[in-house]
């Protein structure tokens, strides 16, 4: 049978059929208003979910038969700059064509712009599948996210000009980073000014731009002369056909080598303003960034799945001391932990995707009509949930992907260190995941509010209200004990003062503890619905308990004077 990365993965089908999907799709489809207007619009929930499955089946087939096959060659060949244009590796072009010809760009865009109008969950799922085939290519495919930003904030003119091109294969990039503005995007200096014809012109340098030679670029630039902070930044859309950018070079990277990362010089480049002036970073980039963070979550889970499957197969085939190495406790512990981490980060990923889905659809609805009070409540609830969970998805899935790839090489032993097997590529590809679209450290900064305000705690308590079968009561009881331990930990940290350096120093421990608890609770709910998660639930909750104890012990024994010891190391 042909390789299909959707149909061979029962976990995906489980999450696709979550009970919230009926409401998610009804909202996204505005009570199926497109039915009759577009010949591919669904009539009802069953029709829509069936379409999701059928389209994900195509994504799975193309990924298994094309992307995964090309990945190795693309990693070796990489893109190059020829005549001031980036030429993809041949395999990258083949991947892009296969997905374009199958109509798989613009998945979540409305039909009037040529999109499939899919809700966010199947879109994230497609991103996960694509990433399993080729982590580097996932960037080029995933940058269709930019279309979402244009759709949400662009004028009618901009929407009509750019959006229909997405489904036909126009690629995108989001140009934020500069040599002096990385994590701190407030420092962006690329200049935007109005010329005599009232057209915006961009001048300056952007660095580390993924898919830098894209057809459609979203550029963050300083439109307000004399400003130095976020309030002077606006968002612009640039068309490649203007030919006003010099590609200075493409970076030679450790991993995701098929994804071109470029340094660009904007030479009086014409551009159009997206949305309102001064809201570039404050509103639009933050929205785009949240989507991109979830995208890295999907990329991480997909890559981890790919690595885990390699490890599993190798551990079955490789024999030492007269038996397959999977039968040795130290090896099967690694394998089962990988699986548990993947199941845990995946359930968190789709929990978040559902919250984003509800938020986006209700938000779109609010543009058509005034929302009912209970709809406003629902919107608020899911908006809060999405904001709270997004940094956790980014943090955990990317760290787990690195751990899974690290352990995969360990399972392979000496062979894993060789270029002969794909696992070394996966290990290199994984490394960027904890860095781009906001480092793990920045995710902690984004998440710490949820600890201080108690939003994580109340969400955990909501999960505890979901009834479980008697056989899972013991796990539930353990999770409740862990939550109590977490509360003690937070109380102890509060004694330092939430604005203190000591609190910041321990922030990651606190955020991780909350994350572990949320994933444990989600896995328990999953296992309660479907036994295929029983082992992961048991394994992950024990693992998480040990991790939580470790952090709790550290905070309990924490003494502010230790900070001086840390700092003395680099003050010498």
């Amino acid at each position, binding site marked *: *049978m042909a390789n299909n990365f959707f149909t061979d993965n029962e976990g995906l089908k489980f999450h696709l059929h979550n009970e919230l999907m009926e409401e998610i799709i009804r909202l996204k489809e505005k009570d199926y208003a497109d039915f009759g207007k577009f010949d*591919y619009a669904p009539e009802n929930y069953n029709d829509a979910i069936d*379409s999701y499955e059928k389209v994900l089946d195509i994504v799975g087939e193309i990924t298994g038969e094309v992307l995964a096959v090309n990945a190795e060659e693309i990693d070796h060949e990489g893109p190059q700059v020829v005549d001031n244009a980036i030429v993809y590796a041949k395999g990258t072009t083949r991947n892009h064509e296969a997905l374009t010809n*199958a109509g798989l760009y613009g*998945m979540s865009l409305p039909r009037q712009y040529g999109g499939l109008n899919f809700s966010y969950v199947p879109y994230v799922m497609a991103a996960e599948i694509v990433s399993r085939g080729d982590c580097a290519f996932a960037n080029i495919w995933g940058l269709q996210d930019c279309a979402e930003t244009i759709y949400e904030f662009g004028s009618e003119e901009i929407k009509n000009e750019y959006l229909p091109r997405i489904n036909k294969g126009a690629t995108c990039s989001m140009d934020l980073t500069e040599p002096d503005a990385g994590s701190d995007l407030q420092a962006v200096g690329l200049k935007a000014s109005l010329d005599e014809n009232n057209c915006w012109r961009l001048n300056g340098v952007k660095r580390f731009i993924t898919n830098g030679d894209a057809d459609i670029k979203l550029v963050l630039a300083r439109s307000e002369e004399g400003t130095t902070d976020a309030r002077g930044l606006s968002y612009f859309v640039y068309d490649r056909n203007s030919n006003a950018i010099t590609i200075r070079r493409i970076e030679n990277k450790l991993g995701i080598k098929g994804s071109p990362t470029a340094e660009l010089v904007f030479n009086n480049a014409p551009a159009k303003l997206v949305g309102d002036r001064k809201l570039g970073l404050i509103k639009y980039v933050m929205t785009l960034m949240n989507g991109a963070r979830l995208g890295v979550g999907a990329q991480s889970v997909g890559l981890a799945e790919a690595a885990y499957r390699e490890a599993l197969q190798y551990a079955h085939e490789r024999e030492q001391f007269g038996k397959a190495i999977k039968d040795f406790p130290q090896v099967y512990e690694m394998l089962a932990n990988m699986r548990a981490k993947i199941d845990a980060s995946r359930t968190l990923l789709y929990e978040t995707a559902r919250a984003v889905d509800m938020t986006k659809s209700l938000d779109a609805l609010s543009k058509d009509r005034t929302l009912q009070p209970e709809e406003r409540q629902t919107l608020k609830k899911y908006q809060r949930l999405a904001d709270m969970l997004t940094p956790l998805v980014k943090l955990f899935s990317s760290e787990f992907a690195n751990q899974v790839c690290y352990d995969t090489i360990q399972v392979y032993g000496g062979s894993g260190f060789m270029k002969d097997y794909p696992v070394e590529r996966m290990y290199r590809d994984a490394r960027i995941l904890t860095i781009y679209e906001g480092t793990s450290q920045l995710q902690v900064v984004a998440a710490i509010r949820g600890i201080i305000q108690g939003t994580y705690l109340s969400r955990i308590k909501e999960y505890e209200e979901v009834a479980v079968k008697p056989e899972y009561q013991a796990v539930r009881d353990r999770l409740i004990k862990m939550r109590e331990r977490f509360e003690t930990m937070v109380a102890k940290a509060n004694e330092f003062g939430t604005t203190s350096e000591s609190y910041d120093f321990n922030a990651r421990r606190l955020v991780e503890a909350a994350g572990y608890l949320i994933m444990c609770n989600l896995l328990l709910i999953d296992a309660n619905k479907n036994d295929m998660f029983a082992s992961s639930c048991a394994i992950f909750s024990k693992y998480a308990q040990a991790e939580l104890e470790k952090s709790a012990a550290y905070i309990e024994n924490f003494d502010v004077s230790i900070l001086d010891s840390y700092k003395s190391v680099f003050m010498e």
Partner: protein
Amino acid sequence: MSLRIVVLAKQVPDTRNVGKDAMKEDGTVNRAALPAIFNPEDLNALEMALEIKDKHPDATISVMTMGPSRAAEIIRDSVYRGADNGIVVSDRKVAGSDTLATSYTISQAIKKLGNVDLVLCGRQAIDGDTAQVGPQVAEKLDVPQITYAEELIEVSEKSIRIKRRLERGIEVVESKLPCLITVHGSANPCRFSHAKRVMKYKHAISASEAAERGVDTAKLWAEKPYLKIEEWNATDIMAEDERLGLTGSPTKVKKIENVVLAAKDSVHLTPSDEDLDGLMKELIAAHIIG
């Protein structure tokens, strides 16, 4: 004038994944035990048709298949990938057809369609591996045939130029239209289904499928005629009954043997003419080659 293309396709048991119960006791293929798939070389033929349509966007592609009602799956799959429509030739009378009866049935159906410029089909099907139906259809339609096609080089409304894959090399030939082409597995693989086409055509259904599922299609077909999969029986294609199915099939299976190749003892051969000659004679005597 726009090109009218017919692609002949067959739903076959997936003989590449044969399990224990693949054959019945009487030596025939146990179709129920094997997943039904699109015959692989027919997919190459469909791709070639789609490549012609890429160059001549007003060309129409009709996919024709002969088989039981579930063969309509082949039509849906083809339409998802870009074909315009399809026809299932289905009738109890055609059951048990050999290649002669099949090519008669298919050629009658093509004649009913009328004004066909190009017929494309896979070189052979993986269930029978005869590679006879394509050439026989060409003879019955009295049109030229190009077999073992690997690549479409050029096509106009009057002629087609094709690269053929032969045992000892390649050959480029040109034929006037109408003609029939059998496509080799080394030709381009078929493109994937298109997301929007899948969503548009997934409810396409044939009359006998509708009857089996107890669905009333009157309203559906009236509103969306593109969701009707044409189904023709022996009467529709004006076939003579005695030339159909088992009656019309002179091929008789005498015996089916299950050959188990178990190497009991190995024979050591020296690279001499004498030993090679001996091996060849042995293989010919055992009917393994020759």
